[in-house]
């Protein structure tokens, strides 16, 4: 058993909220730069050049990349040998979000109730997902999620007979409908299988994965276990969505999507759930292992 003081979680969450809102991961930045080289539309190139300049200003001057600094989504993969001490782990995560959003001059975008809608003033509560895993470490992932793209995300309870074509249509149509509202070029997280909520959760978690396929050692190891058809499906969807011509900011062009990340899970004999979580080009996530 390893004792872990929850104040350490607070400190890390605070730092990760700030870092995630100022700096993209290298893989996403690289994908945006590549889009700039390959874009065929003049307007598209102008949009991508503004997006690249924006990332530089954000990092150099420590101004959030986007004013929508999101609702804080936090994944905790907790080793079963870990024993938290010094307080409530949920409170500790929310305290980290509170401190990070205040100290980082991040926008407070959370309202207390979906109908009453009074701003909580500190961006809490976070959306927190706990998972128990083997080991004595805690893997923290902070993924601030903006709602321009969240609002355009969809879930479909397809029939088994709809098959892989049904899945493709669901993803492509969701991307098309998201259009200019969700700030393309997108990163698209897709969950296939499980049940209603498992599917949605997989689609969100897929957005926190590397988008540079098989480049990081962890991803390569993981991909060996993944069915080859999933990798092919990711590549096919990427091409087909780019073929829509929606382009950067939805103003026309080649680069509509930077990556499609798919997660799957066994499902029921009667179902084929598909969740499509759209993320804008500001695909923010930071991970630390404690």
């Amino acid at each position: 058993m390893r004792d872990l003081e929850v104040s350490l979680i607070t400190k890390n969450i605070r730092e990760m909220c700030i870092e995630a809102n100022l700096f993209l991961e290298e893989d996403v930045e690289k994908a945006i730069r590549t889009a700039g080289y390959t874009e065929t539309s003049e307007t598209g190139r102008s949009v991508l050049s503004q997006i690249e300049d924006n990332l530089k200003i954000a990092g150099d001057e420590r101004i959030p990349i986007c004013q929508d600094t999101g609702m804080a989504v936090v994944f905790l993969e907790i080793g079963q040998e870990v024993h938290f001490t010094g307080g409530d782990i949920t409170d500790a995560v929310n305290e980290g979000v509170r401190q990070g959003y205040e100290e980082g001059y991040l926008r407070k975008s959370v309202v207390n109730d979906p109908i009453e809608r009074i701003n909580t003033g500190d961006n809490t509560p976070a959306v927190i997902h706990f998972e128990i895993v083997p080991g004595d470490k805690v893997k923290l992932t902070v993924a601030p999620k903006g709602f321009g793209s969240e609002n355009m995300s969809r879930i479909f309870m397809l029939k088994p007979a709809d098959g892989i074509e049904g899945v493709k249509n669901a993803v492509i149509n969701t991307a098309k409908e998201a259009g200019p509202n969700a700030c393309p070029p997108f990163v698209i997280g897709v969950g296939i299988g499980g049940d209603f909520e498992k599917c949605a959760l997989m689609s969100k978690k897929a957005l926190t994965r590397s988008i540079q396929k098989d480049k990081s050692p962890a991803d390569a190891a993981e991909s060996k276990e993944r069915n080859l058809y999933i990798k092919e499906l990711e590549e096919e969807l990427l091409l087909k969505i780019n073929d829509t011509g929606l382009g950067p900011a939805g103003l026309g062009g080649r680069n509509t999507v930077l990556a499609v990340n798919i997660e799957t899970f066994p499902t029921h004999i009667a179902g084929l759930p598909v969740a499509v979580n759209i993320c804008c080009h500001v695909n923010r996530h930071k991970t630390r292992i404690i």
Partner: protein
Amino acid sequence: MFKEIKIPFSKEDIANLKAGDTIYLTGTVYTARDAAHKRMSELIEDGKKRGLDIDDILPFPVKGNVIYYMGPSPAKPGQVIGSAGPTTSGRMDKYTPQLLGMGLTAMIGKGKRTKEVYDSMKKNGAVYMAAVGGAGALLSKCIKSSDIIAFEDLGPEAVRKLYVERFPVIVVADATGRCIYDEI
């Protein structure tokens, strides 16, 4: 090529702006998003019932002005404003025809609008422009002053008066009803 345009827009400006034009805007714009639109709409309804002059009760006179759908991140000491990019315009569609009827000349945001909004723009002579979503740090550099003028309790959704200089936008829909999103 970006054209330079000053706010307030003249009638000629509105007539000459075409969907697809890229422009740099200079002048005063007012921010309002979901909660501020709801409140303004309630003030207008209430003012009408009580026979009041609507311009006296709204945070700013709507006629001839420009609304920017935006809620910034907080300014750090020494900054005019924090990150300040556009939010999705479609959420304001419910309230927009009323404001266009009162003489609103332009809106800056991102994303699709309803047919009612485009029809009302055509009828009233207004334009809809998009700034690049997710470029809030870059766009903040074009904002030279920012003052909260109403609804401070709404935090990021308060109404702000901004002075912008060479603020880059693209005309999405012009006063003839043409919309570039429909052509993609």
